[in-house]
């Protein structure tokens, strides 16, 4: 199994108050699945994404990736898992504004280490090409449209060939036509066998997935499969 969680909880301390964002989430996602995590804000779906993406660790419970426990890892180890296994796609793209697309897309290769400079560039250009940005290589993010930016962000998520693409409201900042283009790309990735997990509150986005996990109050309230 690619992803397996067992009774994951997450508790935040907000001053004196304690907020339970996750209250025992147990789920399994196999390689190549196309999953949407849905729910209103505050339902815990973002927290789950952070934990699945190894940006955060659960308060209790176990998280296994490739049958290896990662919930026990700390700083350096988590960074390595994020780098190799996870490709993030954010709502607001999160491209670095001062460097061009090639440099942005090369970043995961840079942090991976042991990839020669020329190889980094070659790979970045290859992925950007595949996403139709071959003519935008030397452009800075602010010289691009929203759709182009999100495509660049997807290129960056794919460049290290991760096990999972984690997309957090990938169409949230885009108009509906551009949003559809981005969803087409994610569909295509899934069709090519990539594991895609989308976090969204938009039912039309979730409709692209084969499996939808409905979050409410920090637990999986319901699950739909198609």
């Amino acid at each position, binding site marked *: 199994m690619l992803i397996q969680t067992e009774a994951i909880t997450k508790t935040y301390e907000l001053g004196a108050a304690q907020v339970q964002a996750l209250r025992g989430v147990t789920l399994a996602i196999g390689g190549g699945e196309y999953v949407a995590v849905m729910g209103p804000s505050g339902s815990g779906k973002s927290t789950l994404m952070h934990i699945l993406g190894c*940006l955060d660790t659960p308060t209790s419970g176990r998280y296994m990736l490739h049958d290896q426990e990662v919930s026990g890892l700390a700083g*350096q180890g988590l960074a*390595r898992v*994020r*780098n190799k296994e996870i490709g*993030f796609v954010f709502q607001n793209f*999160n491209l670095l504004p*001062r*460097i061009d697309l090639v440099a942005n897309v090369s970043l995961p290769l840079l942090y991976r*280490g042991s990839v020669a400079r020329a190889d980094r560039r070659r790979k970045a250009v290859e992925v950007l090409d595949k996403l139709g940005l071959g003519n935008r290589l030397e452009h800075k993010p602010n010289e691009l449209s929203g759709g182009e930016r999100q495509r660049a962000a997807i290129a960056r998520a794919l460049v290290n060939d991760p096990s999972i693409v984690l997309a957090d409201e990938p169409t949230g900042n885009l108009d509906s036509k551009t949003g559809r283009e981005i969803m087409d790309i994610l569909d295509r990735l899934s069709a090519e066998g990539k594991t895609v997990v989308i976090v969204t509150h938009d039912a039309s986005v979730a409709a692209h997935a084969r499996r939808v996990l409905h979050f409410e109050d920090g637990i999986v309230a319901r699950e739909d499969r198609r």
Partner: protein
Amino acid sequence: MNLAESFAAGMQDMAGNRGRAIITTVGIVLGVASVVTVLSLMHGGQAQTLAYFEELGGLRELRITNSRSDRVFMTAAERASERLTYRDAQAILEECPSVLTVDPEIVRFLQVSYGDETFQMKVLGTTRHYPYADDMPVAVGRFLTDQDCENYANVVLMGPTYREDLFGSEDPIGRIITIEGIPFTVVGLMEKKEFYFRGGGGPGDRNVLEWFNLSHYIPITTMIKRFTVSDELGGLEIAARTVEDVAKLEEEVRTVLRRRHGVEDFEIDSKQEGVQEQAEQQRFFNIVFWAVAFVSLFVGGVVIANIMLSSVTERVREIGVRKALGASGRDVFVHFLVEALAVTSIGGAVGLLVGLGMTAAVDRFLGMPTALAPSIPLIAFMTSVAVGLIFGLFPALRAARLDPVEALRYE
């Protein structure tokens, strides 16, 4: 990510934000520039002191003089002593193993005439070991020889100052001048000696070695025979075999002279003491200089720390993104530290140039002596790296410790 790649990432970032880099650099430029200027001033002062003492003669020499004491308060033993004599000089030469040369001298102010011209002049009775002879070569002719002393020869070397007054443009060698009515053959002409301390007062600077130029030199034996009632010396210059032997020689001389005089009515001075004294004074100025340089560096460093900190705050989101893409805390730490180092290294290089300019200006317009030591570029570089490390450390740690989730959420 290895160090070289972190460096590349840091540099890439600097290039992307020139404005901030430039502002940050200004602080360090001023700091390094003042360090460079201070070092040049310090070296200049030291070099001038050493040059002065070298002009005066080497550091191997000791000067022995009669101690000044009022006759009224003299003890019987002091009164009985003959004071420093030419015979003392010969005894030192024979009895002190560490001695290389002995140069007794007797100074008198005597009437020197040539044709109708007569001047009252300083005449030094000395030997071929006159210690300044090496530093003050004979311009024309020769210096005194051992034969001159053995033969009580009536020969004289002229200082350059009166040469024109006496001879005009004529060649003085071989001419006869009279000293107190006794004819002397001119065998040589000393070269003009000049040494100006700079900053003493501009155009009014006095040649502190002018007294050399006013003197005439005759064999000491002739001086004793013709012009003095005793062989009492005004002073005695002796040289040790090596600089290391100077202290030993001082003791040997003290022993010999105490035995001969029965009392310690003489003083022995080494030029090293003078050098040390000058060095002490110099040290005080150096401390002040360093304090000024340190304050400027500190201010530059605080500016860097400040701007780096605000840059970390400004880039919290970016740090979150980098971490999401796989940057470890260490990667981010190195990244920010490298940025600080890049800024300070560039600042150091510019500061070095500005400092060299300031040094030239101080030298030119304030008339203070400066000297450029070869170590200055190295010190400037090391200083800027040190400032970058010290003041970049805290901001870099802060960046490294940011929680990625918090950082990504940051607006």
